[in-house]
């Protein structure tokens, strides 16, 4: 059983209130951190091996050490709470149930980075969560953990929440900063990176909610102790939001030593697939990462057991692997249609493309239309190759990774489920009334290695 570092106290009665949270040991990391040198905190985070939980998995300590520190310029910490990736809802759970944990992590991280004004950019639809955070900030301030001269240390810090307006693209860190500045949420062209020129043209660190929350146990227990949890470069615990055809959808905190099979089938986590159905496929890390058929999900192409960690999930590259991503775990049972499923994603990315760069702006819409055609019984064989061509020329050629995120699911669907596309095309009428497959994919397939 995983030792919980973040969600241990979520079910304590009244934990949303400062007093209860404090009584349960909250805000100790602030007291400890304020007595440390700023660089030593960065060092601890480096030692912990913590990797960004927003999707890319970039080592957080390293990111912090890149922050430019020119004379006379303020530095900023921005928390990315935009969480709009389909299938991902772990940050909401954390902020909603234990808001002070994020505030505590924000204070420690702000101190470490020298940010006296920090922001939480929160998804617009999470309006009630934003209220919860505002209340937590107020309470922390009343108790001297925010504001001027925190705990007599001489460190001043204010935290503001800023609500987004409902655009997925504002989760991309530079679009987020533009939006925070009050402009259209268009991703910036990099370089310069936020660490050099971020919000208000000042050096900025953008981190995910879970990343910042994880700083609390790292300071409390030391980076060393944190790095001992997990395996390899996947240290600490990870929040997984599981959904789809499983018995127990929800947010789970795991240490990254369990297998995917255990995660899906054990009662401690997802509790298996309902209605006696069999597993067909799964998107292990949020809608942007490649989908995997059951056989490649449970075992890698090399025949090893696939584990719930960064390295194992990406084993085999995109040919036979996927990614940890943001931890949005979407399970599909044998009744689900991959074509329709991918159409839903294609529509999402088309809708959310900011339209700045031509491949993503035009390509996402085109892919959606081709998917509509196939799903609606009008597909032709050439459409499959066309889809492949469209996604291939979007990937890597855009300003921000949304283009890649739109391309990858399409590529993976065709790579692993091409016969399902062909079935739609060969059975134009049947595909309108029923889904393809029905048990076909529940049995392990031959590994497809390209």
């Amino acid at each position, binding site marked *: 059983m995983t030792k919980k570092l973040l969600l241990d106290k979520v079910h304590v009665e009244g934990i949303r209130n400062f007093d209860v949270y404090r009584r349960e040991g909250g805000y100790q990391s602030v007291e400890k951190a304020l007595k440390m040198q700023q660089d030593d905190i960065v060092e601890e985070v480096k030692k912990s091996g913590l990797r960004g939980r927003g999707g890319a998995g970039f080592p957080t300590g390293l990111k912090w050490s890149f922050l430019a520190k020119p004379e006379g310029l303020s530095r900023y910490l921005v928390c990315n709470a935009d969480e709009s990736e389909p299938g991902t809802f772990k940050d909401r759970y954390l902020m909603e149930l234990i808001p002070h944990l994020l505030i505590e992590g924000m204070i420690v991280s702000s101190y470490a980075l020298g940010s006296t004004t920090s922001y939480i950019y929160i998804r617009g639809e999470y309006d009630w969560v934003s209220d919860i955070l505002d209340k937590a900030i107020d309470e922390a301030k009343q108790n001297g953990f925010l504001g001027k001269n925190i705990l007599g240390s001489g460190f001043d810090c204010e935290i503001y929440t800023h609500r987004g307006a409902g655009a997925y693209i504002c989760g991309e860190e530079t679009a987020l900063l533009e939006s925070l500045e009050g402009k*259209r949420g268009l991703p910036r062209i990099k370089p310069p990176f936020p660490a050099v020129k971020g919000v208000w043209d000042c050096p900025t660190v953008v981190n995910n909610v879970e990343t910042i929350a994880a700083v609390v146990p790292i300071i409390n227990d030391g980076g060393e102790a944190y790095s001992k949890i997990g395996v390899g470069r996947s240290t600490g615990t990870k929040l997984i939001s599981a959904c789809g055809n499983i018995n127990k959808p929800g947010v789970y905190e795991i240490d990254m030593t369990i297998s995917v099979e255990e995660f899906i089938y054990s009662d401690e986590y997802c509790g298996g697939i309902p209605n006696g159905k069999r597993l067909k496929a799964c998107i292990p890390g949020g809608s942007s990462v490649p989908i995997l058929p059951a056989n490649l999900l449970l075992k890698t192409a090399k025949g090893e057991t696939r584990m719930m960690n960064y390295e194992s999930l990406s084993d085999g590259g995109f040919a036979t692997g996927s990614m940890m991503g943001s931890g949005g775990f979407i399970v599909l049972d044998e009744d689900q249609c991959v074509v329709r499923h991918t159409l839903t994603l294609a529509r999402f990315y088309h809708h959310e493309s900011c339209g700045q760069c031509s491949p993503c702006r035009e390509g996402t819409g085109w892919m959606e239309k081709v998917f509509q055609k196939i799903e609606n019984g009008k597909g032709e064989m050439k459409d499959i190759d066309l889809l492949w061509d469209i996604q291939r020329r979007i990937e890597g050629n855009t300003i921000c990774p949304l283009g890649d995120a739109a391309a990858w699911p399409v590529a993976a669907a065709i790579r692993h489920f091409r016969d399902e596309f062909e079935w739609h095309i060969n059975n134009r009428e049947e595909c309108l009334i029923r889904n393809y497959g029905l048990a076909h994919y529940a049995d392990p397939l031959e590994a497809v290695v390209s």
Partner: protein
Amino acid sequence: MAEEQQLFKITIDGITIEVPQGTTVLNAARMIGKEVAPPAMCYYSKLEGSGGKCRTCLVEVAAGSTKDPRPMPKLVASCRTVVMDGMIVKNKTSERVIDARNGIVEYLLINHPLDCPICDQAGECHLQDLGYDHGLAGTRYEFKRRTFVREDIGPYVQLHMTRCILCYRCVYVADQLTDHRVHGILDRGDHSDISTYVSKAIDNDFSGNMIDVCPVGALTDRTYRFKNRVWFLKPMDAHRDCDKCCGKVTLWNRGDEVYRVTARKDPWGEVQEIDGKTAWICNTCRFEKKKASDWTIEGPTKIDRHSVISANHYAEKVQPPDPLNKVLFGRKPLLLMDIHEVSKVNTPDIDLSKIPGPATSTTFIDRDEAKDIEQAEAERLLINDHKELP
């Protein structure tokens, strides 16, 4: 500072050049010349912050720098990538680049109306040129194209949003040249729309420059609409004393009539720099001065662009040498009918009806000079063995 004058070496498609630190790869390529310069649909050197969007200028970086010679994994936008010392870049020599660029052109065209036959921009349109170089002969897009209603924005400019490629140049013009920007991009993705804010008309002394920067026919000159085709017009450099702008323009004439006035363009299709300043022109010069007498004409404009408007004004092209001399080893070609002699047809001293057989050049030669005739006939026999005699 000495550091700022440092020169960086960059090799593009095998040609090496030294450029000042801070130069972008695209500008370095432009310094080398047209052969290696990537196409640029959104970057505009005179507009700060432009570029990076259309992705037509993508290039492959085969070596990042002398210090770190690793290749870059992704193609990069050359208009927004700064040269590093020892960088090696592949543009036309990279298959990846050509493939990606073909893709970008396809993307740009799927929602484009392709209404060139009725578009005022035809002939000087960068998308036409790009499509010509990189496009497919047909389209693989079989769905309805995105359309918008045509809109007059202000008294002088017409917006044809359906043709827009969302390069954002006009937005930068409004930001950087006019006092208050009242138009911008609304909505997002492929349904983005350029529009004026709450239907405010764009009415500003320098708004007409948006027409000049628009790479396609999305923003056109209402005073020139459907008046003519650009390739029928004769561009002339001209100037006048103007209290608002530099007054240095190109007039597009047919006969004595001035059809339209534009700023002067450089080989990249951008507004020229004159005396160190970008020669933007004001709306008075552009829209109100349509009489030849308003202007002092300097002479024909040299248009140096690979596009239809260059027709008949090739600045760089040299007439190829006449190969006839070479093939005939110095002999003069014998023409069946010398065009100069034919004029004698008009002199009625010969009655053509009395000639046996068809008339030839010799038919018209003065009959008194029999000697010449004999000689001409001899020559003719020599060359094409044609026995028929007058």
